[in-house]
């Protein structure tokens, strides 16, 4: 009975359908050469084969997940710090630094981090993490600052210690805002991660970049379509998550 309801509920989630579509396309990709040959008749090799699309997608997701996690730890941590009594004065500074980080073009961050971190996934992770901090920080800050003062007052008044208050009252109440910040960060990063391939990180950007440099629009289409599908899937996934934590 309960399992049945759960299934019915799950079937109504677009995120699941999109994820299923993605999985199907990745499984079908190795057999899609005839399709792309039909679409691009002039192209002698119409399907990107340097790495499997499954491996590319996995590497792409890994880049996004690791960088978003790093950014979440830093962003939420900073938001907690500037909403404590001891850190309140740092709020303008932290905001300004995060906003400036956001204004650097991603390619510039990549170019600057290569001499420090070398080629590969490391500079891509650094750039993506830097990019994701601002939306997460802003979301977490808004959430923490919006905890009603009456709730804070009551929690303090009945004897919540500051740490328990943060964990049991403030962070749960800020969670919808933190998730919203994480959602924009992840979506931005799914798009930006493609550029990581320019410094040698494996990602869905690899076929796009190769397609651009070799004038092979089929590769660009293949990489671009999967990036877009990934972004839409993640967006719907977050929408479902936000609905689940929204207060009743």
């Amino acid at each position: 009975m309960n399992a049945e309801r759960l299934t019915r509920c799950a079937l109504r989630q677009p995120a699941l359908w999109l994820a299923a579509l993605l999985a199907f396309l990745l499984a079908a990709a190795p057999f899609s050469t005839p399709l792309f040959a039909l679409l691009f008749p002039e192209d002698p090799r119409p399907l990107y084969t340097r790495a499997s699309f499954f491996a590319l997608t996995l590497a792409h997701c890994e880049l996004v997940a690791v960088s978003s996690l790093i950014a979440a730890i830093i962003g939420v941590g900073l938001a907690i710090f500037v909403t404590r009594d001891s850190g309140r004065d740092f709020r303008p500074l932290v905001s300004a630094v995060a906003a400036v980080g956001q204004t650097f073009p991603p390619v510039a961050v990549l170019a600057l981090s290569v001499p420090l971190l070398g080629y590969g996934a490391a500079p891509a992770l650094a750039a993506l993490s830097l990019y994701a901090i601002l939306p997460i920080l802003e979301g977490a800050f808004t959430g923490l600052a919006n905890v009603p003062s009456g709730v804070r007052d009551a929690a303090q008044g009945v004897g919540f210690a500051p740490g328990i208050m943060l964990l049991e009252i403030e962070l749960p109440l800020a969670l919808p805002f933190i998730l919203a910040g994480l959602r924009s960060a992840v979506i931005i990063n799914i798009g930006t991660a493609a550029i990581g391939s320019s410094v040698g990180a494996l990602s869905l950007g690899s076929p796009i970049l190769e397609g651009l440099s070799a004038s092979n629009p089929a590769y660009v289409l293949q990489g671009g379509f999967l990036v877009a599908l990934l972004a839409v899937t993640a967006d719907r996934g977050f929408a479902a998550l936000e609905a689940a934590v929204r207060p009743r």
Partner: protein
Amino acid sequence: MIELDGVAKFFGPTVAVENVSLNVAAGDFCVLLGPSGCGKSTVLRMVNAMIAPDRGRIVIGGVDIATLDPIKLRRGVGYCIQSVGLFPHWTVERNIAAVPRLLGWSRPRIAARMAEVVAAMQIDKALLPRYPRELSGGQQQRIGVARALAADPDIILMDEPFAALDPISRAALQDEMRRLHEVSGKTFLFVTHDINEALRLATRIVVMNKGRVAQAGTPADILMRPVDEFVRGFLGRDELPLRLLDLVEIRDRIAPLSHRPSTTAIGGNATLRAALNMMLDHHVSRLAVADETGRIVGEIGLADIVAGGAPQ
């Protein structure tokens, strides 16, 4: 039970509280009364160690609270503010159980205490799994009071708890507080700017003005002998004699039954104000007075009300 000795608090250049000394005895219902900004909330928050006094001492149960861990102190007293103070992401049940959980009580102990508190505050059990936003203002505040009582503290601090409520819910909760005070014998320190609320609840009123105690005493003391123009003005100058009617019960003015008794009856434990109201309502100048069982034991006339005299 609660002693303040020369307590002062400054916020920058502004004086919030200046040289306040108070002694709240165990079992008192002490109301801090005054206009907004008079320092009454600051006093309450200092008693709960949420603000440290700049001068003076606060002693609870013989112990200077400056020597106590503030968090332990707060868990040991009940604290209740306006209804916004409920935790919106917790169910009513979890809200009420907040302090016992902080204190690390066992599940069965919490469950047993919950049942007591829910019964004492007459909370509908169907509300327990609901969230605060689904409740009316009056219900929310009832939960707020229940949360303050949950760990069975000897002292309960309340900061304008009923200020945002409609008059009917407010009156109901005030009655609840009176009953609770009578049956529990707990010590209450209650902040309000509402003179009627103060008169309804207090065994002792402390009128505050500009951070100082303007007058402290029983409600009758203060109504009959206001020390200065401020207190007189705050009590509602022209209505002072009418307010006194709130403090006297009919049984204190009861007269023997006359040969032609009134057909309209009122309970002996109602106030003179209620009697006057009923007379005006029924266009009569005499009422029969009934005891708790409904037996007519005497009567009261308009003259008995007007005759005046100090309430006991």
